[in-house]
Every structure is written in C-alpha cells, then in structure tokens.
C-alpha cells in the first residue's frame, strides 16, 4: 500500500509554496529548483490542486501560485485526496468496483478500520503545522550544522 509520487511530490511542493508565501506569488520554477521536482510535473500537480480549491494561479509577468486559503485550513488529507483519490487501503471500500462479497467479507471490517486510522492522521495535520515544524525543527537544525562547518 503506497502513496504515489504524485501525492508525495504534491505535498512537498505545496509545503514549499506555503513556506515562501510571504514573498507573494511563487513561480513554479523556483519550487521546482528547491524541491528537485521537474517543473512540468509540478504544473500537472498544481492544476489538480487548483481545481480542488487548494491553490490559485495569478497570471502575468510576476505571476505564479498562491494558497487559496489559510494554511491552517488546508489539511494533508485534503491534498492527498485531491491528488490520489480517497485514501483507501483496498479499492472495494469505495464500493467501486462493487464486490459480490460485500456484507459477508471476512476482511472488509479490518480494511475499513485501516482507512479510518489513516484518514484520521491525514486530516488532523494542516499545512500550517508542517510549516511550523519545518521552521522550528528542520530549518534551525540545518543552520546549526552550517555553523559548525
């Protein structure tokens, strides 16, 4: 059971956007350079996130992308679901395709509880939590390392 590159890269690119959002509109090229993800792939991801109402695009020479709402109102679950579809460990949980064993399946209940546990985690973490953690725990540590070199 794996989250695809789309979900992983998408989450990274969005956190990067959120970290730099104080600088105004962010162009995809700078996200691409910082994250090491191709610009074309980020564009593909941001088109999906725009349709999901998570980012907004701004046209023009100084154009780029901004978050469509406050980072505290965007959860990891919103982003992953937009990019990956429902976070389910097995396809039958969504009822599509319909399974003839539905209602008498030996393992359906277990998979349902896996889905609930994963969603609970994903929807409890916001983009603003990630930005804060990045600033307090990652950035500060990296600076320390630089000082000692």
């Amino acid at each position, binding site marked *: *059971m*794996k*989250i*695809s*590159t789309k*979900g*992983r890269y998408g*989450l*990274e690119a969005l*956190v*990067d956007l959120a*970290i730099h959002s104080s600088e105004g509109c962010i162009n995809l090229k700078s996200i691409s350079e*910082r*994250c*090491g993800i191709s610009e074309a792939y980020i564009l593909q991801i941001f088109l999906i996130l725009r349709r999901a109402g998570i980012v907004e695009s701004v046209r023009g020479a100084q154009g780029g992308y901004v978050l469509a709402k406050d980072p505290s109102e965007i959860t*990891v679950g919103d982003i992953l679901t937009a990019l*990956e579809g429902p*976070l*389910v*460990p*097995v*396809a039958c949980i969504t009822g599509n395709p319909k399974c*003839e*064993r539905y*209602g*008498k*399946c*030996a*393992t359906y*209940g*277990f*998979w349902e*509880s*896996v889905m609930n*546990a*994963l969603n*609970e*985690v*994903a929807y409890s*973490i916001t983009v603003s*939590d*990630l930005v804060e*953690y*990045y600033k307090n*725990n*990652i*950035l500060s540590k*990296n600076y320390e390392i630089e000082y000692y070199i």
Partner: protein
Amino acid sequence: MKFSTKGRYGLRAMVDLAVYSKGEHVALCSIAERQGISTNYLEQVFSVLRKSGLVKSVKGAQGGYILAEPPSDIKVGRILRALEGPLSVIDDKADNSRDSETGIEQCIKQCVWDKMNEALNELADSVTLEDLVDNYRKLVGMENTMYYI
C-alpha cells in the same frame, strides 16, 4: 494507496483456513472455491505463509494446510508483513532519482508518513486472526465452535 492482491487475498484465505480447519488440514482448492481465488495463486501465497511459519502443510491425498499457531496468537500485522513486506504508506526505495533529502522531505516524513505508518502498524498489530474469524462468523451467521488447534 492500495494493498496488493497478495496481502488482500492472503488475509482472506487465512481467515477462511481458520474458520474451516477445525483441527484438520484444509485443501487449497476448497479455500479457492469458497473465496473465489485461483488455486494457483493461493499456492504462491501459502508458500510464503509457510516460510514465515504461519501455516504448516501436509502432502498427500488428505493433505493441505493448517494454521501453525492458534488464531488468537496470530496478529494481522504479521500476516500482512509476511506477504507485503514492511507496512508503510510510502515506498522508500522508489525515490532514487533525487540524491539528497530536502528539509521539506524530512519535515513531511517526520510529521506525515511516520505518523501514518505508526497508525497503520499499531492497528494491524492490535487485531488478531481470531478477531477476524469471530467477525466473519457473525456476518455469515455461523455458530461459534471450538478451535481444535
């Protein structure tokens, strides 16, 4: 994000074996028939389960498989790990295109993937095969019978 057929079918086959074994060896073809899984595929799955010490096999006309331990001692996590490898929502090996881990990647790993994996493993290790068997019996209206293992 999905579990593979091996994990899904393997878990269902283990519940079936636990329900129908009644202390005797069960032929794979009877599990295959009840669960709608091909016998060939089950042979692969059970060879992995046997190597992991979860089932024992007997050859011959009355041969087949039996659980190696009482179902109350077999955690679902053990079955899934035997069939799928470590339970993780991301594939750590898939991403060798980028050679250095960025700060944002570290941040997301620590705040999101590690937390999701923790929830997943904790859940899988809190449910036993016996729990699934009990649940299955209720679903199909079977009376609780003694295990003869």
